[in-house]
């Protein structure tokens, strides 16, 4: 994956390459060619944010933090593998990048709802990343990984089924 992106990187760099002559201070006549190598940034998802299995009971919250710690509150039963989402960023060696997460809650809606009224939903909030905010890509490889977690709020007697939702994660250059 990290290699296939490099292929694209080179392709992009070559397609945008500008060939021109540059004034040369030396007295000898020297043919000069320049190819601009564009800096690139890539993001790939390595693993999903996983809240494991939940039995709602009278509700509560399940927290999966970016640093891998998990917690739950209320009377719900939370079992199984719980893990934060993982991403890999690759760019120029030693460059500082910033991860931006939503500040408002994401809504997860029950799929295939045929009942009256709006589909039951749950909310996901308290997004956090590890490392948090800005961090540096590896000086040697130009890569870094980061994790994203959050807190899911489950209602009392939350209808069973598949809940789907999305949340935005951005990696930004300065």
């Amino acid at each position, binding site marked *: 994956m990290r290699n296939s992106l490099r292929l694209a990187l080179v392709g992009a760099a*070559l397609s945008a390459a500008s060939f021109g002559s540059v004034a040369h201070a030396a007295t000898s006549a020297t043919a000069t060619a320049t190819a601009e*190598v564009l800096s690139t940034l890539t*993001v790939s998802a390595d693993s999903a944010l996983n809240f494991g*299995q939940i039995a709602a009971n009278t509700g509560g919250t399940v927290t999966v933090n970016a640093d891998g710690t998990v917690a739950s509150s209320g009377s719900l039963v939370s079992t199984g593998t719980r893990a934060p989402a993982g991403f890999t960023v690759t760019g120029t060696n030693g460059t500082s990048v910033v991860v931006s997460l939503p500040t408002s809650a994401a809504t997860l809606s029950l799929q295939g709802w045929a009942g009256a009224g709006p589909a039951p939903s749950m909310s996901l909030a308290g997004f956090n990343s590890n490392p948090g905010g800005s961090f540096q890509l590896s000086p040697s490889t130009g890569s870094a990984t980061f994790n994203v977690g959050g807190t899911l709020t489950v209602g009392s007697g939350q209808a069973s089924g598949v809940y789907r939702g999305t949340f935005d994660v951005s990696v930004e250059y300065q």
Partner: protein
Amino acid sequence: MTFTNSLNRLALGLGTIVAAALATPASAQGDLLVAPTRVVLNGGGNAEVVLSNIGSQPATYRIGVELRRMEADGNFADVTEAEANATEKAALEMLRYAPRRITLLPGQPQSIRLSARPAPELPDGEYRVHMSFRAVPPALSPEAAQEQAAAGQLSIRLTPVYGITIPVFIRKGRLEAGATIANPRLVRTATNTVLELDMRRTGQRSVYGEILGKRGSEQVFQIKGVAIYPEVEGRTVKIPLSADQLGKLKGPVRIEYREMPENGGQLIAEVTSAIQ
């Protein structure tokens, strides 16, 4: 740059292609590459940004513009259109770009064209938007949803809509900027030691460059791509240090803030200080 250097670079590029061809791609849907990673349009003009699908499946991407404000710690805060100030609104209005939605096969790149024309009546200054490139998550088929629901438990399908945001700067007029570095200090946490710097900015535009730390003639640390945007007068920069780097930072250390090498590498600010 000499011809030999260019040839070396080209050879390096070809080497990378060979390495890439041997690797097995194993990536998620929506993985993406963007180049270049910042765009500066002096007095307006046109530019192209390449978006490439580096995943193993076809994916649809949405291209948009967003507003961000830098904060004192160097992180970004989201700004909604309703919260935008006059400068930010002007930036949104002057930028044109297309296409805004593209579907790409694995390995396929496409250029997004952008152009900006600052209106003559706009005051001189730096106008900035952040261009976002995000994969649109695929819809779950009804059959798959049925199957998953049959389990009778709460099942959660969270799809991160992940992407890249790059700054696009439109500069109008002759803009000057400078910076200073002050108060280098070590901050020790339970897990690591971080060098913190206070950086101040002056002038009408952002500054951008790399921070280099030198002990005598030896370069001990380097952090590239550090910007101070015009909406903040200054920011802190945190540089994590290894034990090895820390050991080398005894006595006076010279810290430089320079333009990126591709922009000439000119010195913007420096400080020489013992760090503790």
